[in-house]
């Protein structure tokens, strides 16, 4: 194994080492280690980002084609590091107030990010699975991080049990796909299925062509007939596992409970990072590996997208708890992304990628306001606690307003352009029914986000809610999120170009 292969996983390696350092730093140094841990973590993320940027010059397939360094993977890596850095910055006050161990929190966050990075770059289902498990295990622990609080432990337990249940489906899907094609490499599976279906159509035309050794020389010999049933089964099992992770219907049941019980910064992380990583695997598996069976699984995506939007938005209408509300909104947003996914095109894929970035920025921001206002012990997370926020803390309220407007999809915010691209790609793919459903949904969704705004600006507070001063780290994060949301709405080009590039690569390379 040549040594230069290691550059391919350099970002992950950096994060692993930094994670270990932070873990030791957290346990060995004396009392006031918070700042040190945070600095090292952020530096590690910065180093990993530099490594990823440098990787653009060294693209290709590594480790026997198991691990890809391509625009698609790089896009996701950068997104993950941004999310992790924002979560690190925003959680500082929270961890201090809740008296949680800082070192372990950051370590788990970093390890989770490593897993997500592997998921985004994996060209082999086994590696995807390992990445999925690494990131999931870290998230399970993070969800239960407030050990003294029953609801947090309950969430962790639920998430762990259901999550392992779902990944078992995923694993079973891998096994069946291997059984059907004889490979776990996505690009190989793609090629094998192409050959087989090519043979099948040729056979239907009347001449049975045997594959010449040259076409299939390096590949495993594909099955004789197109294994439709087996592939369908495999696709649906893979779908179960991945839909669970992106909290798409009908596998969304865990989301509200887990999001509500988890520490708020962790909820922010879960709703953006692992969700994006699962989408990365989703896109790779279905658009590359299972490309040939698109007409089978696109129906699946269609139904799931429509269900997610409706369940998420309708259930959110009556929520009074902010975390639960945002949890349902997260389900709905997964639905919008699935709409673009269903389009099965370069435009659709880049719409998903852009949406993920916009959603990450706005949702992290919204959760940060929820974290800050929640105060010690997350006591103030009901919508009534937001009454009159517009007068008591205009700046905080203004930030939350930006995030909510973006979640609704008002122009000049990232959320609008995200939705815009989603609708556009769906319309171009002639998914007229689905487009109309998503349009109706985004009209319904406006209602519950508006409720929060009504509470902030138009209601008088019902009980005194203490308001902590905004610390510098929270301020910086809020500024990045709010600025980023607007930036994506006004100057979306750079991100869009990256997304487009990644999407083209994903669909064109195979």
């Amino acid at each position: 194994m040549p040594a230069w292969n290691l550059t391919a996983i350099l970002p992950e390696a950096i994060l692993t080492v930094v994670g270990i350092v932070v873990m030791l730093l957290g346990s060995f140094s004396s009392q006031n280690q918070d700042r040190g841990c945070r600095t090292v973590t952020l530096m590690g993320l910065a180093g990993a980002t530099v490594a990823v940027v440098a990787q653009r010059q060294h693209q290709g397939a590594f480790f026997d084609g198991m691990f890809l360094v391509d625009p698609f993977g790089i896009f996701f890596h950068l997104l993950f590091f941004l999310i992790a850095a924002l979560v690190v910055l925003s959680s500082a006050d929270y961890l201090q107030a809740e008296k949680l161990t800082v070192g372990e929190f950051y370590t788990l966050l970093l390890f989770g990010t490593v897993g997500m990075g592997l998921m985004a770059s994996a060209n082999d289902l086994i590696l995807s699975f390992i990445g999925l498990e690494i990131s999931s295990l870290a998230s399970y622990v993070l969800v239960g991080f407030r050990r003294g609080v029953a609801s947090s432990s309950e969430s962790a337990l639920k998430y762990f049990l259901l999550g392992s249940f779902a990944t078992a489906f995923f694993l079973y899907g891998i096994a069946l796909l291997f059984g059907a094609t004889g490979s776990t490499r996505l690009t190989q599976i793609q090629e094998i299925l192409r050959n087989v279906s090519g043979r099948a159509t040729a056979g239907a035309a009347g001449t049975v062509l045997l594959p010449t050794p040259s076409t299939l020389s390096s590949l495993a010999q594909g099955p004789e007939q197109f294994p439709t049933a087996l592939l369908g089964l495999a696709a649906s099992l893979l779908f179960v596992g991945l839909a669970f992770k992106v909290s798409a219907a009908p596998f969304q049941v865990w989301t509200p409970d887990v999001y509500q019980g988890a520490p708020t910064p962790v909820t922010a992380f879960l709703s953006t990072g692992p969700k994006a990583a699962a989408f990365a695997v989703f896109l790779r598996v279905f658009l590359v590996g299972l490309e040939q069976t698109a007409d089978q699984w696109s129906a699946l995506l269609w139904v799931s997208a429509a269900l997610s939007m409706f369940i998420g938005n309708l259930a959110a209408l009556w929520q009074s708890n902010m975390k639960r509300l945002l949890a349902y909104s997260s389900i709905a947003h997964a639905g919008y992304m699935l709409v673009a996914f269903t389009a099965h095109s370069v435009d659709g894929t880049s719409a998903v990628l852009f949406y993920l970035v916009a959603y990450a920025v706005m949702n992290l921001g919204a959760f940060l306001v929820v974290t800050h206002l929640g105060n010690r012990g997350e006591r103030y997370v009901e919508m009534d606690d937001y009454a009159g926020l517009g007068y008591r803390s205009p700046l905080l309220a203004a930030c939350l307003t930006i995030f909510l407007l973006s979640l609704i999809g008002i122009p000049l915010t990232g959320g609008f352009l995200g939705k815009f691209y989603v609708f556009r790609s769906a319309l171009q793919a002639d998914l007229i029914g689905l487009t109309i459903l998503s349009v109706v949904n985004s009209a319904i969704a406006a209602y519950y986000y508006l409720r929060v705004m009504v509470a902030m600006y138009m209601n008088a507070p019902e009980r005194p809610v203490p308001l902590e001063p905004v610390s510098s780290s929270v301020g910086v994060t809020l500024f990045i999120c709010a600025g980023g949301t607007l930036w994506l709405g006004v100057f979306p080009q750079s991100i869009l170009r990256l997304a487009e590039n990644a999407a083209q690569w994903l669909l064109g390379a195979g």
Partner: protein
Amino acid sequence: MESNLQLWLIPTVPLLGALWNGLWGKRSSERAVASVAVGAVAVSFLLALRAFFALGDAPYLESYFSWIAAASFQAHFNFYLDPLSAVMALIVTGVGLLIHIYAVGYMSQEGGYYRFFCYMNLFLFFMLTLVLAGNYLLMFVGWEGVGLCSYLLIGFYFRREDAADAGKKAFITTRLGDFGFLIALLMIYSTFESLNYSEVLPAAASLPVESTAGPLTVICLLLLVGAAGKSAQVPLYVWLPDAMLGPTPVSALIHAATMVTAGVYIIARSSALYVHAPQALFMVALVGGITAFYAATIGIVQTDIKRILAYSTISQIGYMVMACGVAAFSAAIFHLMTHAFFKALLFLGAGSVIHALGGEQDIRKMGGLRHYLPRTYWSFLIACLAIAALPPFSGFFSKDPILWEAYVSPYGGILFWLLGILTAGITSFYIFRLFFLTFHGHSKTAVATSSGIHVAEPAHHGVPHESPPIMTWPLMILAALSLAGGWVGIPALWRGGDHWNLFLAPAFRLAALPTEHAVSHDAATEIIFTLASILVSVAGIALAYLLYCRRPELAAAAAARLRGLHTLVLNKYYVDEIYRSLFVQPLVVVSRELLWKGMDAAAIDGSFQGLANRTRRLGDRVRRMQSGNIRSYAGWVVLGAILLISFMVGLAS
């Protein structure tokens, strides 16, 4: 193209005003807040004036920077100035300025002074973006922005639950329309590969007229959906009457003069598309005509002064939309302008009345205000005459071409003319009913106040009093405009120069009727039609005079005779109720009963929190937490997986 006009300043100045008041207004005095807000609008107005006079023959384009430059999609931040957008910008800033000045006096008694002006300035920013935008996407930015500001301003009296609800209703109803616009926008891009007016409109003009429904027809119908949402046309009009819960200057500015006419603007702007899609054009005319007539009938029986004006607004916008539908775009914009004058005046006058009576809005409780509010009375009378379309008031000159075009245009017909003339009669009837009940007859408020039946409101000082000069001056200026504003468009028939049509012609050059039937009518026909419409208007006024001034008992008798019809119309044909049971109720049931009570609340109850509230037994608690809920969740996952797998396998075999 050289950019020496700096069009971007026109919307930006109000934005700066909004930011200033939003950030520092809370600590500033009312005077400072007002001068910043009014000053910003004044500057914007002057800039718009400068742009107006700099107008050349060709449309003037300023492009600032590229907004989206993806390979497959491009849009710029650019502004577009032609006679149409220049006139719109002038109306918005001019009427906006007068209403701002009025509001300085009107809002001084209310709380949230800085907040109000912040939202108002923000509204102007978005409205000006809407009218000056050089492409459909930027227009959409303004389009959504004005909706948002309208929502904020409707819900301004935040202590009133119904006001907040009305705001949400407005936001969501118009948003349904907005998505029509959004999809239209996407289709425009896929058809023309651009969103800039300067490229789309000529491209559309070069396309053949669609004899059967094609992409242009679909685009135009979708735009109509958007316009119907924003301009409160059938069937999406339900939000506008409720929107009257906002402060009166807001009703005047947003819900009468500017924002609600955005739908007319977008149809006029896309005129080149519409004339190539005659079927869509017919739908436009139909929607407009029906709305004009339908809303006017509701206006007859309403009793809330602002609601009558709201239905009148819906009806008048219906007129404009109908004018667009018969391809009389410049007539539509003409009426849009005069309507902005007299409807703003009506609302501000109504505000003055409400102000004087300490919040009373029921016209049955008014009367005899002529003596207490002389300036309001006279300006209101001018506005009423203008909306009733009597010469020489502005409404006459703008409404008459619409009626005439409705008849002679190749897209029109006798049906639309009939709808129009009936509506004209009803309009003059209900507006003078309002006028007579409010200003003539016995003063009912004074009696009510002295006998103590009426709950005295804070600003109620017993005897109604005229508003301060800062409120009456804008009224008088608007009255002058309502009277004389129509004179710029006196047609050749009346020895006028037809300046209006000539001025706007460049904006609609691309919408020149591709198949000019050129049905020529002699002047005599036109004069007969004009006389007919004057006659109808006068008849409406006379009837109102008879029923509400001379013989008030007749009105009651008529209402009693036609009890069924009266109740039906009084309840607005029960459309709100029908919508609720058709659209809102099913959503609520699914959401609350199934998802919330069925799944969500059950989940909370089954979880630790819920159990902790019910049972305090420790061992039991932990055990159930582990077994009950998760098992059911896993059950859901399995159920979903089974459905999925059987679906997939079923598909495969």
